[in-house]
């Protein structure tokens, strides 16, 4: 049976929010340990296509999620601005706090957003290859020193609320 669909196109500011949020999850090197970021994969266009393809309820939920993430700087890090207008390191803090939110719907919706970003990002052959190819010990040691911070340091720095994220 055909279901009602109501998916007005995303406005230009919503497209900018989408790009910024996706870019925070999967940034470009050197902020990423993978070959490229998600921005080159046109995340806003992808998100718009997802909204058009999924049932109305899920589509509305995802759009609400986008707004929630966009306006989150104010209630998570007390900064006036949207996700697109704040500094990249602040964006990371915002998303980490949303994922660790004590409010179930907030963290669950943010997680869905992260899942959609991953669906797009994993379509890149280059990224898939980098994810699924084993690291050899020597290579890994080199990577860990050449990168800004290894996992254990990066995550210990962001302990606190994120340490209890239900991811």
């Amino acid at each position, binding site marked *: *049976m*055909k*279901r009602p669909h109501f998916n007005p196109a995303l406005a230009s500011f919503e497209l900018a929010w989408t790009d910024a949020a996706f870019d*925070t*999850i*999967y*940034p470009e090197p050197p*902020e*990423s*340990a*993978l070959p490229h970021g998600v921005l080159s994969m046109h995340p806003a266009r992808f998100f718009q296509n997802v909204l058009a*393809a*999924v*049932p*109305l*309820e*899920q589509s509305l939920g995802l759009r609400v999620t986008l707004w929630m993430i966009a306006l989150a700087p104010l209630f998570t890090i007390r900064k006036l601005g949207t996700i697109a207008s704040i500094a990249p390191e602040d964006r*990371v803090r915002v*998303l*980490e706090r949303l*994922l*660790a939110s004590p409010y*179930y719907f907030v*963290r*669950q919706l943010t997680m869905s957003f*992260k*899942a959609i970003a*991953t*669906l*797009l*990002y*994993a*379509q890149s052959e280059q*990224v*898939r290859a*980098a*994810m*699924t*190819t*084993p*690291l*050899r*010990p020597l290579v*890994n040691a080199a*990577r860990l020193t050449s*990168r*800004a*911070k*290894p*996992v*254990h340091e*990066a*995550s210990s720095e*962001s302990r606190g609320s*994120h*340490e*209890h*994220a*239900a*991811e």
Partner: protein
Amino acid sequence: MSTQPSSFADENLPEGAVVDGETLTRSIDDVFDVVIVGSGAAGATAAHTLTAAGLSVGIVEEGPWMKTRELAKDVHTAFGRIMRQSGMQVLGGRAYMPMLQGRCVGGSTLVNSAIAWRIPEDVVDDWSARFGLGSSISMRELEPHFDALERDLSVREVDPSVLGENNRLFVEQASRQGFKAAPMRRYDRGCKGSGLCLTGCPNGAKQGMSLTYVPWSLERGARIFTSCAVDHVQIVGGRAVAVQARSATGQLVTIHARHAVLVAASTVQSPNILRRSGIRAGALGRHFQAHPGLAIGGLFPTTNRPIEMAFGATQGAESTHFRTTERFKLETISLPPDLAGARIPGVGRELTERLSQLAHVAVWAAQVRAEAEGVVTSGLGGVDRVDYTLTKRDLEAARKACTVIARMLFEAGAREVWPGIYGAPSVLRSIDDVRHLESAPLDPRSYNFIATHLFGAARMGKDPRSSVVDLDFQVHGVTGLHVVDSSVFPTNLGVNPQHSIMAMSRLAATRVAECAVRSTLGRTGPGRESARKYAKTLDEASTAA
């Protein structure tokens, strides 16, 4: 690299056997001995059994036929085409729970891990004791059907050459802990370990319904109407006479049934089809059950042998050690990057750092034999809805399962474990940290469950006040309307259900076939003993074919 065979069983189908609702430009009015709603594990098995008895069969399937050569490897494209609601369907309740259901020819058998488990004897005993199913649904009745299915669909243990490290390590670690564990038994004809079960086997090795019972039934004269969503079953004078569907192009599709209509649209869809058909049984939509699943990832040192989930059976090892005592089953699951990414802690650099080491990540899971019962209803616009909240005991089982898995991962050498439980650290760094899980909250909103394996909602029983179908799978008070999927199961099983669904469907179809043949020949009912003999005759016919 694996090479594909020159042709797959879903190619070169008999002319006119497939009516594609995506290109249909006129309405359809057709007639068969039996009409089956759904082409998944239950529907396809019934079609195969009925065509073996010489009956004409029409199958109505809501989704498209995704051929082996057309399968996409990335989850987004694949799920968008073959999963209900593009894979975004959820159970409601205190917490949302994703519920993955295939919506295509073959149903979930196209996208599951093809795990074959005979229904456990304790479950059959329970059904007999608590629901009065007695000799109608007994191991004696079911065993010949399991045997036939295993022959037809090549059930075998995962070959060591395609076991993969994720599975091998699980078996090794479970055995070290003293848990019974083993490679799984699956419907497998030449698995190459592509690790792509969840998006459909690109090698046609997984013996799902779209490569086996559906095309085999078409060879015997059945016809399938794909991309045609069933609205209701027409019931006239207390008898099911036709199925009304609408093609994806909006054309009306009416398929008349001379003898019977078999509903096999799944636990979520079948109850609502019955509702729209005017069935008003009190138990309809109630007693829904599931096996909520949880997966936990562990990151191993890069100096260790890599796990490489991209190679090996997607789900290849399991342990039922805790099934009866703690109500959960442990198993492996190799997640593709598309799905793993969302479950790995962090964003930005932290996340990509972990993802760059995905080849060193193992994912082990638990499915809980939850006692909770939910309700299937129809929401606005005809959307199927399920309201389902786990009980405290279910959450205790889930928490225990997480603790066991986390401990196993650390003892296997993991340096990080990601439990994914709100209220516990998102990253555990040593086996001592596992204690945090022991006191994790008993709140369904704290866990990331996925609802797998759905049961009930059109439960079988003798009493029409507490059940929907009788012991012959026929809806109480409606001649010729049968439900043959896991909707009729009085409870969940605690093991993967596809094999049991198919055996039950085969049993049901055998009884329907016998009844149809009897009514054609004008003979009177010979009882269950002759039904068994009849099933044997069908088996011989099947083997000969």
